């Protein structure tokens, strides 16, 4: 029996990475849920929007690095973030202007928007691959760890180490800050309330004199900001590869639907639930159980519920379970 080591092991391989991942998913799901709440369609291009934003940040980071600018222990990418956000906002507004607005004026079926968003997704995917290429790009610099596994072991005298990376802490801090600002905006400001009103009851919002174009514009701006930050944090924490942003779409959708689509709080909850499920279900508990069992004993096999290959199957299973059991999501979402 060695509970302390077991807990540290669990924290190191499950809790810390899953929390960072959850924050990234939550930011992504917030964007999806916002677009859904305001424009009422599932935006398949959201993954590529994240990718696009991250790409802009990476390019700016490289430029800054070339100029010799750095933030010391913090990644330079944080400094490049505003630039990436600006570019992505402009891009999102342009797609709205030249693609989605047409269908809005025509009052098209939501599914038409969704198909158009798939078209946008492909144009963006192509652009991104032409501009930055399909390969891995690493752009994290600065200090790697806040505490390394070895330091932790020396500090505590435990067998297991707990490594905390700078990027993980940054992810969580930035995500919390962004969420706080977003909720302040939605709950306290006039524009934020107008967005909520529009999402709640479009006709009445129009009657109240809320300008739909303004609300839609605002939704895209916020979504682009969230997408760029989410993508950059993901890229810093793991790696930037255009293809990943196609795969991450599924967990993000799962998080948004699980939370109750159109519900910002739900999107955050959903992001963390999906992330924790993904990591806990695909983690091999062998060593963890060995610490908890009697001295010298270890369970046979890896003690894994699902092999890591099926990471995103977890989000799909969650998605299906939600659709079967409670299609409105944890916090009753808009429409089913």
């Amino acid at each position: 029996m060695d509970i302390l080591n077991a807990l540290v092991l669990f924290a190191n391989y499950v809790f810390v990475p899953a929390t960072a991942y959850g924050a990234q998913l939550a930011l992504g799901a917030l964007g999806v849920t916002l677009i859904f709440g305001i424009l009422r369609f599932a935006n398949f291009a959201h993954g590529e929007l994240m990718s696009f934003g991250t790409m802009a940040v990476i390019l700016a980071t490289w430029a800054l690095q070339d100029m010799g600018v750095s933030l010391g222990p913090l990644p330079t990418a944080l400094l490049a973030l505003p630039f990436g956000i600006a570019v992505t906002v402009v891009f999102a507004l342009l797609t709205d202007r030249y693609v989605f607005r047409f269908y809005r004026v025509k009052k098209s079926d939501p599914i038409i928007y969704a198909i158009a968003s798939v078209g946008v997704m492909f144009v963006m995917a192509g652009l991104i691959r032409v501009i930055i290429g399909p390969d891995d790009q690493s752009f994290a610099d600065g200090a790697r760890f806040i505490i390394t596994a070895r330091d932790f072991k020396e500090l505590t005298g435990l067998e297991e180490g707990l490594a905390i990376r700078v990027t993980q802490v940054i992810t969580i801090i930035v995500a919390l800050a962004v969420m706080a600002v977003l909720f302040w905006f939605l709950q306290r400001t006039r524009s934020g309330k107008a967005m909520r009103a529009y999402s709640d009851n479009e006709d009445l919002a129009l009657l109240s004199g809320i300008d739909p174009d303004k609300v839609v514009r605002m939704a895209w701006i916020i979504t682009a900001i969230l997408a760029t930050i989410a993508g950059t944090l993901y890229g810093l924490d793991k790696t930037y590869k255009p293809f990943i942003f196609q795969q991450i779409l599924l967990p993000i959708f799962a998080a948004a639907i699980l939370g109750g689509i159109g519900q910002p709080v739900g999107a955050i909850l959903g992001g963390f639930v999906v992330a924790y499920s993904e990591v806990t279900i695909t983690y091999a508990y062998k060593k963890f159980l060995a610490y908890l069992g009697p001295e010298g004993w270890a369970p046979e096999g890896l003690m894994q519920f699902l092999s890591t290959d099926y990471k995103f199957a977890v989000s799909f299973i969650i998605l299906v379970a939600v659709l079967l059991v409670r299609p409105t999501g944890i916090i009753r979402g808009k429409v089913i």
Partner: protein
Amino acid sequence: MSQRGALYFGIFFLLLIAVGFGQSWNVALGILNLCLISAIMSLGVNIQWGYAGLFNVGVMGFTALGGLAAVLISMPPVAEAWAVGGVGIGLSLLGLLILVAAVIFVRNNVPRVFRFWATLAVILVGVVLIRLVYAPAVDRIEAINPAHTGYLGGFNLPIVLSWVVGGAIAAGAGWLIGKITLGLRADYLAIATLGISEIILAVLKYEEWLTRGVKNVTGLPRPVPYEVDLIASADFAAFASRFGEVADAASVVVKLCYLVLFVAVLAIIMWLSERALKSPWGRMMRAIRDNRDAASAMGKDVKARHLQVFVLGCAVCGIAGAMLTTLDGQLTPTSYIPLRFTFLIWVMVIIGGSGNNWGAMLGGFVIWFLWIQAEPLGNWFMHAITLFMGDDSWLKGHLIAGAAYTRLILMGALLLLVMRFAPRGLIPER
């Protein structure tokens, strides 16, 4: 089919003939064979989208199931693997069924308060128990001659049979997904199909005992003669030498054989689709698509009809998938890039003319042709715009390296333009 439609088909075949003369007949026939398969997939999607307005983003998943069927039907069984792992796999499947039954039982009988946690507990315990049997069985199977087999193999039946079986498997998966999502908003179906296709592809990629995973299953038996056999035959050599190189002729003949088979399947599916569309059933489907509420007020069971049409469409995609794998002669799970090729099929349907089978078929032909020819086009374009740059320019190299991806942009832009300016497609629905 309208005159305009006939004209488009005419232009397409002229283009193909141009490729035949310009590049080679081998290339032209190769493109045509894939065009035929694309057309079948496109018909499948058209059944779902054009008839009923259902948005399926998981076409590649259903196609891959067809590919799986091709392997399972045609490859010889690996007796040793069955001996060491067959029982284990069988028990695992049985366990899975019991687990599903247990979950249903729990959901119906446990009080609401505990239901969620009870379900979760049953699933977790069930999965752990199944893995106790499953994991060792898989290890044993995969240990047998891993360089060549390492999987259970198939049933050693004629591969053409897999076209039917593939359709049936895909239909089953479609039924499951449709059952869950069809009552909900249309976008949920889209998201769920995206999910199921990712999972199907993951299973194909990682369940080596079933598909050899990334090691690929190669050398699937063919329904048509092999080139080497043709070349070896004296009669054929004598016949072919009149047309030119014997090796080329053999390859052309093989492709022609496939062509005949594919045309037959396409013709059957086309005939059935047209009959269905013009039948009272087809009219009802379109009525539901155009005004769901009115149709449901008239007593039509919208959900059941949607499920029907969704399953049919998935089956057609499965058939096409099995045909594709048959043509390739191998199953390479990594080649099914879910969103990219699914999207291509969508472009085919929408550009061809949603709701019109001839349109969908034309779309299948034209878009596949474009997709193939867009690669040299993209290359040429990038070379053209970088002409003024020095050969050592970093940007030039970078742009030329990215040329392959211009076709993603091209296809996306094409879709957006057609949706906006000609939403009814090349051959509009009547």
